[in-house]
């Protein structure tokens, strides 16, 4: 070897493969403002569409008069339900097996519902058109409180299905009932509760929030009448699913539909579903023969396209007096709004909420979920979490704290006592899941040591005494949360969307000069796929990540996949990438064997090429193999070096983590300060630690927002409040706490590279950590459960209810 020969470390480093903090390649364009988003798509002669929306939460439509609007120069068309009926598109199927009005048909069921679609030559004229459409409403009493949905005297909201006794998920108990979903062993659970020394019962609500990505939902539809082809540029997290859905409902041949998701400015579940805007823009382009753009504004986004949560969870835990949990019983009242438009795998009306046993070894559990209609916007999407998993984690993590309080035990100690033990994996939970791997106690203890948990508790005890003596008006809370996620939907045996199995895919094409392009069925919305996917390939086949171009989002070129949400990309597409790369490597090995004149078995892989075992100087690098593959392949072997892999995962993956939050609250104003937030995540094999950290920071910031202020609130009339960023809490850098991140590594045993997915963990684990901190702060004053969000005002209200605020405080 001469001086120029790179060392093994140098060769390894040059690949920038798995484990490397590779800088995000997509940021080169994003930081220069050179991203290409849907609103950047400008086609010649493009028209703009926008909606007339309902001011009422519940009303009958007496008439819609479009005459004046159509007289405005530049307004070309106004679509209503009547127009859409002529193409059979006044209603559309939802992913949850319900149907949803595209444009109000006879009545409106939530405020801001889409009533008419005005198409004009520019956005301004479209808005003038909207203001000129005259709609006459007859207001009906609104149904806002989900606890009243199934009252015998409740207004029937969905007249279209009022006589349907069965919904997509079985029998309905009331015209406003959507489904009942039951899991677990009722008798065993009842018996556990009968025998229990200690039980708790609490209504734990997870309020209505919204994913609010930076970029709202939008699309450009363009119909080529001559070719009969429809091109849709859209902010889709799952472009292939959109193509198939459009083929099914618009009755167009699927090969004539081109769906393109360009750069996406965040999705968080908001961009999985199909919305009236897409359908209307598609119909409008077919009707007018011109391209039509629809771009939601912020208020439309917050108030119409896909809220998240609105779960009211009555939670009961049974335990021994030593603090061993013996049973879990949960009833959920799920407020789905006016249509069931959840974006869950089709057979899972409450998503994977049955992960609600969490990280604990519950011998018995029973879960019932009732979904109901109200006069609110539809949705119920997985806002930065796997399907209903953040709800489940919040439920059990609050429940465990409430139990600890009742037992007079430390909440961390109670968790340690009940964790599923490493030797129990693969673990079969009482509600039907098979957890793949975990080492919970190690993670919890590391978190406690790093944060000096015992010292924090001592400090808290001293502060509580000082508070009682009247020396301070500040209280201190320590929030502990230990979550287990379930991600990577999913195995075709139990996961599909509208019958489409939830596999994912990758196609790799190597070029003769030793570079390549890789395409996937996933779709990044900011997660950094262009960076990390190339890293997996780099490690697998020894080609530097910089020489692999990653492309997603164009259904004409990308292999079919189910898209990106529910932390499924690494568990499913990531596996497909490794498997496709291994096919490339297998062919490369045949080529190397032929060229090095040995048997394949006599070769060993060495970072970036094959070496003859025992003869270190006989080496053929991957770059050279690429050239040979095209230009002088072994006799009998096809030229070229490409592979496709479709991956149907054998199981879900189960990331977990231990979070600790330290918070101080001033009772007189309710103002809180997050003093410290520590997040330990175990997502199995770590592909790019820097991206993981970024994902954790982002997810924690969203968790902070949700727990401490974000809310889509409705008044008694069904008016949506919090529909703008003035009131919907989106923290700035100033409010956002400092995040400390940490990790352990417990690889997934069934995943080709052992990775589990991390993007959603911080939201799932973060929300209970914040909420537990607030509840912990108030617990010594007699509180058991204070509902989220914990904004200043609500904290003050909690203090007032506990008698800490005197009515006549300032009377001298």
């Amino acid at each position, binding site marked *: 070897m001469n001086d120029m020969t790179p060392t093994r470390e140098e060769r390894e480093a040059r690949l920038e493969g798995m484990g490397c903090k590779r800088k995000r390649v997509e940021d080169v364009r994003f930081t220069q403002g050179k991203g290409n988003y849907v609103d950047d798509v400008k086609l010649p002669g493009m028209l703009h569409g926008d909606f007339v929306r309902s001011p009422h939460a519940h009303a009958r439509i007496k008439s819609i008069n479009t005459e004046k609007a159509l007289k405005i120069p530049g307004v070309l068309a106004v679509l209503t339900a009547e127009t859409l009926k002529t193409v059979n598109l006044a209603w559309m199927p939802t992913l949850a097996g319900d149907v949803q009005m595209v444009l109000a048909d006879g009545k409106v069921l939530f405020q801001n519902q889409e009533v008419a679609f005005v198409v004009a030559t520019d956005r301004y004229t479209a808005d003038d058109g909207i203001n000129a459409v005259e709609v006459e409403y007859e207001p009906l009493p609104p149904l806002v409180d989900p606890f009243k949905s199934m009252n015998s005297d409740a207004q029937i909201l969905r007249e279209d299905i009022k006589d349907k006794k069965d919904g997509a998920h079985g029998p309905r108990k009331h015209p406003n009932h959507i489904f009942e979903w039951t899991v677990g062993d009722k008798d065993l659970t009842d018996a556990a509760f009968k025998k229990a020394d200690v039980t708790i019962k609490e209504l734990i609500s997870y309020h209505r929030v919204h994913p609010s990505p930076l970029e709202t939902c939008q699309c450009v539809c363009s119909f080529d009448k001559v070719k009969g082809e429809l091109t849709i540029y859209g902010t889709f997290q799952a472009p292939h699913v959109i193509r198939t859905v459009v083929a099914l409902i618009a009755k167009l041949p699927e090969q004539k539909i081109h769906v393109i998701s360009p750069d996406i400015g965040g999705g968080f579940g908001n961009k999985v579903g199909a919305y009236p805007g897409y359908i209307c823009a598609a119909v409008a382009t077919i009707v007018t023969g011109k391209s039509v753009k629809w771009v939601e504004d912020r208020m439309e986004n917050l108030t119409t396209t896909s809220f998240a949560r609105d779960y009211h969870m009555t939670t009961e835990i049974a335990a021994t007096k030593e603090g061993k949990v013996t049973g879990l019983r949960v009833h959920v009242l799920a407020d789905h709004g006016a249509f069931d438009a959840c974006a869950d795998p089709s057979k899972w009306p409450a998503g994977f909420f049955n992960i609600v046993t969490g990280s604990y070894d519950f011998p018995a559990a029973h879960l019932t979920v009732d979904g109901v209609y109200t006069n609110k916007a539809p949705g119920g999407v997985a806002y930065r979490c796997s399907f209903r998993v953040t709800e489940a984690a919040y439920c059990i993590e609050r429940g465990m704290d409430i139990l600890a309080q009742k037992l007079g035990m430390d909440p961390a100690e109670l968790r340690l006592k009940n964790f599923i033990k490493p030797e129990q994996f693969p673990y079969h939970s009482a509600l039907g899941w098979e957890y793949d791997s975990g080492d919970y106690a190690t993670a919890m203890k590391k978190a406690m040591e790093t944060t000096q948990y015992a010292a924090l508790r001592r400090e808290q005890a001293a502060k509580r005494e000082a508070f009682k003596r009247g020396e301070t008006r500040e209280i201190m809370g320590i929030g502990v949360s230990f979550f287990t996620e379930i991600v990577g939907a999913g195995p075709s045996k139990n996961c599909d969307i509208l019958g489409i199995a939830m596999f994912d895919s990758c196609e790799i094409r190597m070029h003769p000069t030793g570079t390549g392009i890789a395409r996937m069925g996933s779709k990044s919305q900011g997660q950094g796929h262009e960076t990390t996917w190339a890293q997996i390939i780099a490690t697998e086949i020894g080609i530097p990540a910089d020489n692999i171009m990653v492309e997603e989002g164009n259904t004409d070129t990308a292999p079919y996949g189910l898209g990106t949400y529910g932390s499924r990309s690494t568990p499913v597409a990531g596996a497909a990438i490794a498997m496709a790369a291994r096919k490339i490597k297998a062919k490369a090995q045949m080529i190397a064997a032929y060229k090095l004149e040995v048997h394949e078995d006599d070769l060993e892989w060495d970072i970036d090429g094959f070496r003859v075992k025992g003869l270190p100087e006989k080496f053929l690098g991957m770059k050279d193999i690429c050239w040979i593959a095209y230009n002088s392949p072994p006799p009998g072997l096809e030229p070229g070096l490409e592979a496709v892999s479709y991956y149907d995962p054998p199981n879900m993956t189960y990331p977990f983590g231990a979070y600790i939050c330290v918070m101080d609250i001033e009772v*007189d104003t309710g103002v809180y300060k997050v003093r410290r937030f520590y997040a330990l995540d175990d997502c199995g094999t770590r592909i790019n630690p820097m991206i993981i950290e970024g994902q954790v920071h982002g997810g924690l910031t969203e968790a902070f927002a949700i727990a401490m202020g974000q809310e889509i*609130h409705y008044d008694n009339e069904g008016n949506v409040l919090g529909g703008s960023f*003035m009131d919907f809490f989106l923290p700035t850098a100033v409010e956002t706490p400092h995040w400390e991140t940490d990790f352990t590594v417990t690889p997934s045993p069934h995943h080709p590279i052992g990775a589990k997915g991390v993007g959603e963990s911080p939201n799932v684990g973060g929300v209970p950590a914040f909420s537990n901190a607030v509840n912990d702060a108030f617990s010594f004053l007699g509180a058991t459960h204070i509902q989220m969000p914990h*904004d200043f*005002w609500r904290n003050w209200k909690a203090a007032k209810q506990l008698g800490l*605020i005197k009515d006549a405080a300032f009377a001298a």
Partner: protein
Amino acid sequence: MIPGQFQYYRPATTAEAIGLMAKLGDDARPLAGGHSLIPMMKLRLATPEHLVDLHGIASLKGIRREGDRIVIGAMTTQHDLLASDEIAKMLPILHETSLLIADPQVRYMGTIGGNVANGDPGNDMPALMMTLGATYHLEGQGGVRQVPAAEFYQGAYFTALEPGEILTAIAVPTPAANHGYAYEKLKRKIGDYATAAAAVVLTMSGGKVATCSIGLTNLSETALLADEAAKAVIGTSLDDASLKRAAAAAEAIMSPAGDGRGSPEYRKYVGGIMVIRALQHAAARAK
């Protein structure tokens, strides 16, 4: 979130602007930084047919001393106020308050004139101007008027501005060199209006409050001057009992709306706390 149609004008002098306002009538509105008006137009809560942009009028901008007063042109931005050494030295409370308004982007555009003329109880400058005893210079076809800030506000978005009038400048009496000051603002986040805020300017003499004025933001339909609260502390050393009396007197005149920031009850309560904190803070700063 798209405004309706409007005509745009950019006069070069105050006289020209006043002429335009008179000619265009009721459907004309002056446009300053646009950071209150344009959002309202996008929501179509405001639908002016004519916008008279004041940015072309050089004389409306700037900060100058006129005897014992500081005169600030209406088109002076909140950023200009923050960048001014004169303001930092002579009117430090104006510096402190400006920093608590929104974020740098808003402050680059938003003007002091727009802030006080807007008549929104959520704006921070009106209560401060009342506390400082400022006077507004209004100019219309009928000539020039001077209206004290304390008499300017009549209701939410209702002010003493007559149709066709423009606010040209704000004159603030220079506070005593030894004065203490504080603007205490409770808000949910950067970029939010006050849940409750209090402005205090006072002087101390021999450990006792000699003079004091207190203003309140977003605790009623308009900014308020809390005279009784101020009286309650004059002559005291700001002991607990006097502070509480002041807070109670301030609370007595508050009638905030309930909104996402809190119930009226909460806003009054924290309003009282802002008064106490501003008094304590101001006293600590007084020389």
